[in-house]
């Protein structure tokens, strides 16, 4: 079976973050944040709890508007918004209770411009093949994580934003995440992962939040 985790037709754009600042409530999480990232690079975000790792990922995903600064991707394919070029995997898996694992992944494939027909193969690849026809609410936390990972594979998108991708996963699952990230980067994709677990990649970039927080 051909590896599913190819970034697809769209080449990954480069990321340029300039002077980014964000406050939550009364506290400034970070300010004057600059990050540059080229296609094929993997960035690991670290920093104590509450320093804004998740917020930064949500800013980059376009879910939040920054208080100051810019987040630019270039070059973007014509008519595409940054959101259409990226995968975001957050604390919540994005799985809807009441639907089976397969239906969840297939719907997401249609929504995100992928191929619903690949849902089954993707589930097999993340080791969730036998779970395909079970409703997701009966799955364990680790199993749900795996099903969520299948989403990265059914719709090829060049940018991956992963918030704590290792949570609840066993050793096997953690190895899977490392392999997926490595494959994606090798194929020219761009990955930003917020985690304290080692990613075991040769040239990985690190940004630590919390130092800049006032």
């Amino acid at each position: 079976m051909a590896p599913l985790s190819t970034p697809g037709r769209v080449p990954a754009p480069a990321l340029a973050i300039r002077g980014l600042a964000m406050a939550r409530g009364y506290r400034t999480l970070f300010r004057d944040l600059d990050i540059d990232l080229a296609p094929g690079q993997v960035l690991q975000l670290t920093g104590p709890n509450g320093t804004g790792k998740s917020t930064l990922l949500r800013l980059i995903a376009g879910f939040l508007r920054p208080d100051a600064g810019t987040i630019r991707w270039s070059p973007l394919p014509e008519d595409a918004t940054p959101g259409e070029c990226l995968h975001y995997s957050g604390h919540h898996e994005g799985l809807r209770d009441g639907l089976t694992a397969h239906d969840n992944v297939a719907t997401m494939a249609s929504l995100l411009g992928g191929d619903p027909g690949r849902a089954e193969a993707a589930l097999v690849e993340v080791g969730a093949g036998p779970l395909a026809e079970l409703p997701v609410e009966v799955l364990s936390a680790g199993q749900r994580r795996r099903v969520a990972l299948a989403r990265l594979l059914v719709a090829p998108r060049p940018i991956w934003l992963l918030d704590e991708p290792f949570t609840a996963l066993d050793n096997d699952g953690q190895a899977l995440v490392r392999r997926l990230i490595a494959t994606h980067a090798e194929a020219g994709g761009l990955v930003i992962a917020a985690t304290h677990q080692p990613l075991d990649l040769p040239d990985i970039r690190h940004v630590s939040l919390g130092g800049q927080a006032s």
Partner: protein
Amino acid sequence: MNDARPTSWLQLANPAVFNRWADRLLGPLVIVTLGLFAYGLYGTFFLSPADYQQGDTVRIMYIHVPAAWLALFVYAGMVFSALGTLVFRHPMADVAQKAAAPLGAAFTLVCLITGSIWGKPTWGTWWQWDARMTSVLVLLLIYLGIMALWRAVDDPLRAARAVAILTLVGAVNLPIIKFSVDWWYTLHQPASVFRLDGPTIHPSMLKPLLIMALGYLGLYLVLLLVRMKTELTLRRIDRLQRLAAGIPGERA
């Protein structure tokens, strides 16, 4: 006035500047309001004639009608504040909006209660499904919804934006509700009802009515400023408590 005036409306965004101006305004405003009410109530009970049909009950009008005007006026002000919150992101806009909602509800309630008291001798019942009373009742329900939404959302900024959207949706709906209720009423009009709005109002009644309306307006402004100051203080306390406890005040 030779004092340094705020050079722009935006300067009032600073709570300290707002508080200074509010303090300066409050004293004179209270005096003017008391004066208006004193004269207005004197006019209501002594200067204005009794109605040839309704007798002394017509004097409820001087309490009832300005309350109805204010009920709408306050909502109009809230629409203005809602735009301030959503479009200009003016920090005082949501404070004003939060302070205004219960006042608007109170004026609406005063209008309904006095209307009901007025209704007893004229209609013979405490409540009549008359078009005006019904519209005002729906207005009260909308005010109550806005207040409930304020209380339900913890984060003031989030609450402000949600309430602003609800206020605007309500503003679009209010004329339609008014129209539909009027239309419904004409279809169901009971055989003979005394109409509250006489053909014209005699000047001897109009003057006390306008004075009372100005008094109501003054009362509203006084209460609004006090409530805005209170809200600012509450937010300051909340902020200091959170800082002292080391809680970031996360919006989520």
